[in-house]
């Protein structure tokens, strides 16, 4: 069984999508925080220390890649695994995200929300066993 009340941060500007994943992860027993733009994402990361961040790329105020740069530049947050959840489907964007330290790059439209929740759960299960971020390929 997964660790109780592990905190996930969803940084997503689309309220429908944010709510969808918030409810889905809350149902799986996670404590879920939602940030609606990049700046709020960074703020909540600092405050809440989540075990995983689901990060959108195209967002108002601060771009997702910039959020990643800042997360990785900060000692306190650089070990938090970041799963990029976006609509940008080009391989270049995926490479950029992975090079910046994302553990997985998921294109929303290519999967059912149910599959995405399963993928994130698997990643989290791996981390809770090892507590060390591992490399991950493009999905």
């Amino acid at each position: 069984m997964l660790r109780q009340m592990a905190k996930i941060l969803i940084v997503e500007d689309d309220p429908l999508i944010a709510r969808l994943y918030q409810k889905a992860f809350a149902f799986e027993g996670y404590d879920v925080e939602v940030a609606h733009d990049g700046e709020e994402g960074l703020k909540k990361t600092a405050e809440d220390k989540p075990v995983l961040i689901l990060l959108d790329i195209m967002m108002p105020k601060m771009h997702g890649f910039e959020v990643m740069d800042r997360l990785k530049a900060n000692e306190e947050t650089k070990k938090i695994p970041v799963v990029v959840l976006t609509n940008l489907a080009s391989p270049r964007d995926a490479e950029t995200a992975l090079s910046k330290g994302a553990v997985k790059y998921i294109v929303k439209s290519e999967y059912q929300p149910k599959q995405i929740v399963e993928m994130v759960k698997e990643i989290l299960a791996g981390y809770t066993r090892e507590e060390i971020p591992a490399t991950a390929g493009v999905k």
Partner: protein
Amino acid sequence: MLTTQFLLVNFHFVVSLLAALITLAIAWLYFDAWTGQKSFKQALPFLGFLFLSLSFVVQSVIVDQSLFETAFEGTAAASALKIILRFGGYLTLVAGQLITPLQQRPTRKWRFRSAALLSFLGLPVLELAPFLLAVLAMVTGLLYRRRAARGLERHLKPVSLGFFILGLAELLGVSIGFRDTANVALANLVAPFRPLWITERVILLIAIYIFGRWVWGYLLKRFETQLFMIFTTATLAIFLITTVAFSLASLANVRNSALESLRSDVGVIAYTVDSKKAEILADAQVVSQDPHVGAALPSANRSALATILTNNLLAKGLTTLTVVNRDAQVVIRAEDPEHFGESLSSDPLIQLALENRETSSVDTKEGTLAPVVTIRAAAPVLRNNQVIGAILISSDIDNAFVDGVKEATGLDASIYADNVRSATTFIAPDGKSRFTGIKEENETIKERVLAQGQTFEGSVDILSVPYFAVFSPLKSFDNNVVGMLFVGRPQTSILQTAARSIELTFSISAILLVLSGLPAYLISKYIAGQTV
């Protein structure tokens, strides 16, 4: 035909309420998302879909009134409310789409020209309402499509498709404006329950399916919402089954009570015919007992008889008045004094009268256009207690007779000589002529009424118009069936009576359904609270 129309009325009710349910689910989804951020622009899609949902609830209770000829109070108000809510819904959604910035792709920029859209709003809104609704639905679809195609929100593709299809259904709704056309082919196409009417609802059903699939995808792991949806859908299903069953039962009731009243109507007509028989017999007795007739008959004094008889013929409004001697030879005919001398010995009424028995009977005779039903009576002329001759009189059951019945009782009726209509109160569409001389070829009616002498009641087509009808046999004095009495009402007029209760049932169901949302919500919340 009647049942098909009723099923289609119910189909309209079902589709509209399903549309209301699905749009309510989408409204709820946006409301739930709004609780996360509580910004004004997030509230707009919620309000837009809520207005659409309410407009579909109102739409469900509007029973198509062209079928029922007379307009019901409230229907016009409901139609206006539906259009206002629908407009409100689309405009709120369009506004929401316009003020929410697009999730731009990294390299491209696309500007939406809202000026073209806004120019629509300057047009006379109410006159063009159905057309404008179609345009607004398409524009809403276009704006969602823009988010999916130009922006990054591909998950909104089904919503845009749903709105395009909804726009198509709204476009078919424009056909209501053509219902008064003089073109018969077009009028048939756009009339209620015809192909376009059905297509509009089928297309709406497709749009509902697309929206439904999309919204369900967002309810992942949301037990409370899913339970709420399941409860509401189950409640909807129960309401629909009850309403459809109730409306069909109510239709059957109305049909039965219509037949019941027709049965008593035909009894009234039969009673009138019997009274007429008694009246004619009494007339025959009065003439036969006139001492002047008794005095003039043995000497065959035609001029004396002619004076007495002509007075009677005119005063009592009889068709024929004949005097025969003891040998059944015609002494005089009041209606035609120049012809006399032939023998009526084969006439059963004359035979009985000469045996000193008074009788009256319903018979038929040849007429110019159609056979005629006539009431005849014969009475013996006595002198010193000896039968010296007989009086035979007749009165035709013609259009004037049925008109007289209608004036006194308000009943429409037809009289058949065998299976040919000889008199009727039903006037042809030209306002003058009557449909007499038409044969009733329905084998069931011929067998039951003419051959078995029993009453028939049920649905029949008369000149391609469906009627609820009762046929009752007309019998001669020796119990032979010589014709039929018919009373009937067009089925659409019966439908009008049922329509009021159906519309009331629909309205109450719709209100109860909306009210059942609260307990459904509380129950789902309670159950979901126990499982998590």
